C-alpha cells in the first residue's frame, strides 16, 4: 500500500514539472507566385510616344490620347497602368495573363513588351483605342523575398489615437464604409473615406507596393525594405485613408503576412495604425 501511495504521489507531481505555452507560428514558407517570371516595372521615358496611325502626338487632341507613365506586372498576375490625368498619374489595376511578350490586361487591353531592347520598348493598345509604342526604363522584379507577391485582405485592424485612449477595431476585409463609420463613431466625425474597398496589396520585387481597390483603381508607393521594416512614399497622393508617407512593418504569423502601417492622417492631428492580415495569392 505504501509503495502504491508513494508512486501515485510521484505520478501526481509529474505534471508540475512541465508547463507549456502556445506560441504563434512564424513560418513564412509560401508557394512561389504563378507569374514570377513575368513580373517587372516600366517607367516611361520622356518623349513622345509613337502612335500606330503614324500621326504625331501633337496632331491628336490631348484628351483623346492617354499619356502613359507607368506599367507594372506583379508576381501574382496583377497589372497596374498609370496614365496622366491633369498633372497627376492615375492608376488602373486588374489581372493579366501573359503569352510570350504579349500581356493581356483584363479590363484594359494589351501590352507588348521588348525588354531586350535598350531602352525597353512597350506597345500599349487599350481596348478600342490606338496603339502607342514608347520607350521605358525596365526593372525586372527580383524573387528573393517571400513578401514579393499579391496578398488578399483577410482582416483589417484599425487603431485610432483619439481623445483619451487608443481604440481598436477589426474588420473583415477592408471596406472603407465600415472604417469611416468606426472613425466617426469614435470621436472623429467628419473624416471622409472613399466608397469601395481594398481588394489586394501587392509587394513587388521592383520595389513597389500596389494597393488595388474594388473599382479597379490603385495607389502605388515605392518602398525600401530593411529586415521587417518598410519605408514607403506614394508615387501620387494616395486615397488610402489619406495617409501621409509612413512606416510599416512586415511579419508572418500563422501562415499570414501581417502588414502594419503607422501613419498620420493628412491635415489631422489624429494618428493611428492599420494592420492588414494578408493571405498569399498564387
Amino acid at each position: 500500500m505504501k509503495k502504491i501511495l508513494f508512486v501515485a504521489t510521484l505520478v501526481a507531481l509529474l505534471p508540475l514539472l512541465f508547463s507549456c505555452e502556445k506560441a504563434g507560428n512564424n513560418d513564412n514558407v509560401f508557394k512561389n507566385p504563378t507569374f514570377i517570371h513575368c513580373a517587372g516595372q516600366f517607367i516611361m521615358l520622356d518623349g513622345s510616344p509613337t502612335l500606330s496611325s503614324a500621326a504625331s502626338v501633337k496632331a491628336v487632341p490631348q484628351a483623346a490620347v492617354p499619356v502613359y507613365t507607368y506599367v507594372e506586372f506583379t508576381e501574382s498576375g496583377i497589372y497596374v497602368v498609370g496614365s496622366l490625368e491633369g498633372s497627376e498619374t492615375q492608376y488602373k489595376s486588374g489581372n493579366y495573363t501573359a503569352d510570350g511578350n504579349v500581356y493581356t490586361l483584363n479590363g484594359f487591353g494589351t501590352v507588348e513588351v521588348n525588354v531586350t531592347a535598350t531602352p525597353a520598348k512597350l506597345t500599349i493598345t487599350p481596348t478600342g483605342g490606338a496603339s502607342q509604342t514608347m520607350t521605358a526604363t525596365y526593372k525586372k522584379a527580383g524573387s528573393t523575398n517571400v513578401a514579393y507577391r499579391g496578398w488578399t485582405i483577410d482582416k483589417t485592424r484599425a487603431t485610432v489615437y483619439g481623445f483619451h485612449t487608443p481604440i481598436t477595431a477589426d474588420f473583415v476585409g477592408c471596406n472603407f464604409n465600415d472604417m469611416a463609420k468606426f472613425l466617426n463613431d469614435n470621436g472623429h466625425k467628419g473624416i471622409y473615406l472613399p466608397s469601395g474597398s481594398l481588394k489586394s496589396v501587392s509587394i513587388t520585387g521592383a520595389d513597389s507596393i500596389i494597393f488595388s481597390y474594388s473599382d479597379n483603381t490603385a495607389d502605388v508607393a515605392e518602398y525600401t525594405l530593411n529586415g521587417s521594416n518598410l519605408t514607403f512614399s506614394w508615387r501620387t497622393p494616395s486615397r488610402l485613408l489619406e495617409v501621409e508617407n509612413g512606416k510599416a512593418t512586415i511579419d508572418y504569423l500563422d501562415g499570414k503576412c501581417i502588414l502594419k502601417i503607422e501613419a498620420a492622417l493628412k491635415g489631422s492631428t489624429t494618428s493611428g495604425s492599420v494592420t492588414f492580415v494578408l493571405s498569399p495569392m498564387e
Partner: protein
Amino acid sequence: MKKFTILCVAAALLFPAHAGAQVFNHLSAGIGFGTDALNIQIAAPLGSHVDVIAGYGIGLGVINFTVKDFTLPDPASSSNVNTPLKLGMGMNDGRLLFNIYPGKSGFHFTVGAYMGSSRFISGKITNMPAAYNTAGIDVDGYLVKAKNGELAVDLCANGIGSHAFAVKPYVGIGFGRAVPQKAVSFSVDLGAQYQGKPGVWAKGEGLTGRIAEVQITEKDLKEISKVDEFGKYMTFWPTLTFHLYVKLF
C-alpha cells in the same frame, strides 16, 4: 518552479527517512472552504509529526464585491462613464502542503504551495458603452473588447511561477489534524500565500484569430491604474480555511 517542485518531492522523500514506519499508513479525505476557495483534499502521514496534504480548490465567486466608482472613457462622447467592476473569488488551483506538528496536540505549522492557475479573482466590467462591443483596446496585438456591454477580467498573480502555471508559496499555522486520530477531525488554518503583485488579465483575439490571455496595463488603458492600486495590497493573499477530514483507513 521546477526547483521548487523538486524540493517538495525531495521533502516528501526525506521526511519518511526520519519517521520510522508511519509513512502513508493512513489516508484521509477532507472538504473545506475559506479564502483559498472551496476545496477537497487528501492527506497522509509522513511520520508521526508530518502530514502531507494534496488538494484542489475552485473559487465559485461566492464572496464578491463591486468597485462602484470604476469608470471608462466613452469614445463616442469623449467623457468618462461609470462602469462598475464586479469581482469575486476565482481560484482554480492545486495545493501541496505539509503540516508539521511540534507536539502531540493538533497545533501545527504549515508550509507548501498553491499551484496552477494564476487567477485568484475573477470579475467583469459592466455597463460599458456600446462602442466597446465593436471596438476595444489592443494589448500586445490582441484585441480585447466587450460582449453585450461586459468585459470579463481576472486578477492574476504568478507567485514564483509563471502566468501559465503559478506557484504561490504558503506558510501558516493551524489547529487540528489532517489525518484524524479517530474517525473525523476538524482543522482551522491561518496563513498567507505569497503571490506577488497581481495584474489585470483578459482574453483577447490575435490578428489571426488566436485567443490568448493578455495583461492589461496602464499603458493600454489609463483607468486600469485604479485596479493596480487596489491590487498592490494583495501581494500576500490571506488564507483562512476550515476543513473537515474523514479517515479512510
